[in-house]
């Protein structure tokens, strides 16, 4: 028996990287999962198949989380399929790195719209259902750079710092309805996003990590399971740093 038997989870950006690991881990604990994706239809289908092999249900739903209408369709699809939304994991994120002085307005807007506005829209869209249920868990994936800053990522950093503020405010607004909202701030995790970094940059990063290794997507996914489970009944508004001790 898993910790999340019979629960329904919506994971945004679940076709790849950390989102994929989160979707699989939630499923391994018994949750049915809505695998949201933006463009990677094939990869999302593979995640759905892997989840179904675990003996729970999954469905892939395409949605652009920076558009309210698209988000509503995503949540409607989840409700139609499973009848409840118990867990929302706001994971979807993009990068458009550039030095502040060279950053185009479009690069700023794209990252803000997906990484911050997307979290707001998804949270707003599930709140109604969770309020009725008098229960719900919202887990927002922020980033270590949201608290430490990072050269070349003004847009990404601002959005991820914003996610922490949004987490605290949603936690306060929704606590009386037993909706718990927390954030996770991953450090450097092995994904396509960090594979894109140069060797030199990676080595420089490793030198700053007390545990002296990159994290795995599963390290994040297991914390999501914890925050989504009954083990975390008294935790809300927090940001959990999972970064090998890089930020203390």
């Amino acid at each position, binding site marked *: 028996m898993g910790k999340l038997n019979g629960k329904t989870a919506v994971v945004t950006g679940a076709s790849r990287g950390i989102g994929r690991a989160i979707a699989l881990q939630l499923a391994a604990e018994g949750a049915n999962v809505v695998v949201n994706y933006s463009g990677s239809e094939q990869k999302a289908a593979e995640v759905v198949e892997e989840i179904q092999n675990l003996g729970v249900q999954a469905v892939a739903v395409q949605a652009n989380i920076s558009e309210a209408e698209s988000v509503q369709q995503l949540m409607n699809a989840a409700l139609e399929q499973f009848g409840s939304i118990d867990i929302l994991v706001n994971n979807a994120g993009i990068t458009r790195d550039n030095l502040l002085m060279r950053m185009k307005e479009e690069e700023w807007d794209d990252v803000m719209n997906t990484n911050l506005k997307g979290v707001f829209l998804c949270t707003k869209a599930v709140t*109604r259902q969770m*309020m*009725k249920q008098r229960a719900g868990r919202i887990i927002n994936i922020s980033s270590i750079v949201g608290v430490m800053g990072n050269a070349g990522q003004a847009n990404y950093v601002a959005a991820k710092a914003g996610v922490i503020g949004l987490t605290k405010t949603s936690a306060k*607004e929704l606590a*009386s*309805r037993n909706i718990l909202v927390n954030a996770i701030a991953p450090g450097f995790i092995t994904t396509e996003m960090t594979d894109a970094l140069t060797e030199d940059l990676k080595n420089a990063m490793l030198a700053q990590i007390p545990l002296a290794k990159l994290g795995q997507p599963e390290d994040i996914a297991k914390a999501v399971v914890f925050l989504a489970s009954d083990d975390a009944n008294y935790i809300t508004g927090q940001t959990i740093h999972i970064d090998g001790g890089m930020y203390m």
Partner: protein
Amino acid sequence: MATVIERVTKVVVDRLGVDESEVKAEASFREDLGADSLDVVELVMELEDEFDMEISDEDAEKIATVGDAISYIEGKIS
């Protein structure tokens, strides 16, 4: 078939845990019936379900009293 007034009253009593005698047309949800802002949002959600209608955020903001809710709903369904 219950009237709009009866149905609204029932939703308000159930949601806010107040006595039926307190649910008068002039009663303000927040000032007289002890609702906080989130209670009002929930109340509107339940009225939407009860009457199978959508109440826009703009309209919802104008609903402050029991009478506001009743006249809004009556205006919509007649």
